């Protein structure tokens, strides 16, 4: 009986242990070494450098640039995504909304699509010469904008893409949260003469608070892992304005084969995500306490 449990969890634990837990620990060890192309050829070239990689990173302008770009993506992209998700969820939850099932499915469709494939689509939609977006803007006398070639526009374009691709996901979670708010709260407020806006401000938002916090934590940690969008749409250009931390890690690790440094980048990103999400949770709890 006592053994049976272990027999049942053993296969899954072996997979997770060997192919996830072990590599994570190895990454920590690797980040303290100068593992590079020479060590890849002959392990005897490996040297222990303690925190050398981390200190080195702090002095690398490209790393700071990547961290800055990724933070820009998170700081603008996350609030924007959640705002759009909340808007969509409120519309779907409105008593007067029709054909809910159809709208929900349509707005969720981008979420299940393959990121690489839809990134390719966006590359053409926002193409400077042949793109529909510039053509439509031209129709109202604007543009043309060099979406992916202009330092000021490349990241905003990626953010627009991310909002389009992802808002449906949080919309579903927020919608479930809205539906869980007891109806009698609104009844009572209406009897007291509260306006639509007051109901939203004093019932919907506070009741939805915990769900918004969950959504924010999930979105922040996934947006920090930005990679495929710049890889497919811009390759980090123009002027490296769309190089993300993971893109930087990918190039360090698999283009230049400095796996030690790349592991340090991975751990710094892990730390940044941990700090950012903990901060969010702490802020959320503090607001609840008031």
């Amino acid at each position, binding site marked *: 009986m006592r053994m049976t449990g272990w027999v049942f969890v053993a296969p899954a634990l072996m997979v997770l242990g060997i192919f996830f837990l072990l590599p*994570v620990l190895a990454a920590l060890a690797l980040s303290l070494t100068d593992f590079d192309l020479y060590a890849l050829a002959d392990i005897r070239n490996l040297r222990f450098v303690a925190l050398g990689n981390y200190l080195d990173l702090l002095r690398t302008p490209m790393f700071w640039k990547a961290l800055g770009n990724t933070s820009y993506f998170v700081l603008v992209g996350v609030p924007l995504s959640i705002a759009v998700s909340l808007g969509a969820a409120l519309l779907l939850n409105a008593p007067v909304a029709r054909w809910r099932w159809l709208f929900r499915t349509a*707005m969720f469709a981008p979420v299940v699509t393959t990121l690489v494939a839809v990134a390719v689509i966006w590359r053409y939609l926002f193409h400077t010469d042949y793109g529909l977006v510039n053509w439509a803007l031209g129709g109202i006398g604007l543009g043309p904008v060099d979406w992916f070639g202009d330092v000021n526009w490349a990241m905003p374009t990626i953010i627009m893409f991310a909002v389009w691709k992802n808002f449906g996901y949080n919309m579903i979670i927020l919608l479930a949260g809205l539906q869980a708010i007891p109806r009698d709260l609104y009844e009572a407020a209406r009897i007291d003469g509260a306006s639509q806006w007051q109901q939203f401000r004093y019932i919907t938002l506070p009741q939805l608070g915990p769900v918004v916090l969950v959504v924010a934590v999930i979105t922040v940690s996934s947006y920090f892992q930005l990679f495929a969008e710049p890889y497919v749409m811009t390759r980090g250009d123009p002027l490296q304005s769309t190089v993300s931390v993971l893109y930087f890690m990918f190039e360090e690790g698999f283009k230049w084969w400095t796996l030690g440094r790349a592991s340090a980048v991975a751990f710094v990103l892990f730390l940044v995500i941990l700090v950012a999400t903990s901060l969010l949770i702490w802020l959320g709890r503090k607001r609840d306490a008031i």
Partner: protein
Amino acid sequence: MNAAERADVGDSRWLMWLVNGGLVIMAVLSLAPLAWMVSVSLMPAGQANTVPPPLMPGEPTLQAYRELFQRMGMGRYFLNSVLVSSSVTLVSLLLNAMAGYAFAKLRFAGRERLFRLLLAALVVPTQVAMLPLFLLMRELGLVNSLAAVVIPALASVFGIFLVRQYARSIPDELIEAARLDGAGELRIFFTIILPLLKPILATLAVFTYMAVWNDFMWPLIVLTDQENYTLPVALASLAREYAMDIEMMMAGAVVTVLPVLLMFVLLQRYYIQGLLLGSLKG
């Protein structure tokens, strides 16, 4: 009807237009890029690179698809993706179900501590493991093989968690009764537990299949030869080489996206359920 009531009715009609109008706009914006993708993929070569950009193909043709499958080896990539997604889904379903059931219903030393450790592992971004994982695959001689994509995905904390939550509702008496009848633990699992877990396994299957199908970064790292590419990796590489062949790129996007999109439309009940259960973990 007095004036106030009439104002109310007018108000709600106005609100109805506003709400449904907003929904229509958002739904159209969500689907327009996908519709445009299909439309361009049916255009003859070169038509999309004209100004103004055409919305519809004059005479729909499958030329871009033919090019893709006959010259670019899209069939191979499609097969690779099907193979990887199917094998991961089948095996991981079994392993996660076994582990999830054990964490919910079988007593063993260290069970709770182990489960907490697994949940804690969820905060570690998967990319942290990728660099050493590559070295491990190199030692095992698996770099540039589909096995390198499949093996690390054969169990998931998310899957175990999902099954455990569901399995907790299975009454202990049912399992006890089977034991008293002399059924072995494996037999109990396969004949009694698995059928009861069917709904959550359906959810997990849809989730896993789509996640593996869409996965990009790890396959990109570990698959080095074209013949082993999965669809997203192949498409990203084609997009670099044939950037201006818009019709062909859109056909490639259709081939990549359509299977998961269809799967979602048909099985969305299961997918949405998994999404909501999964978000509770945060």
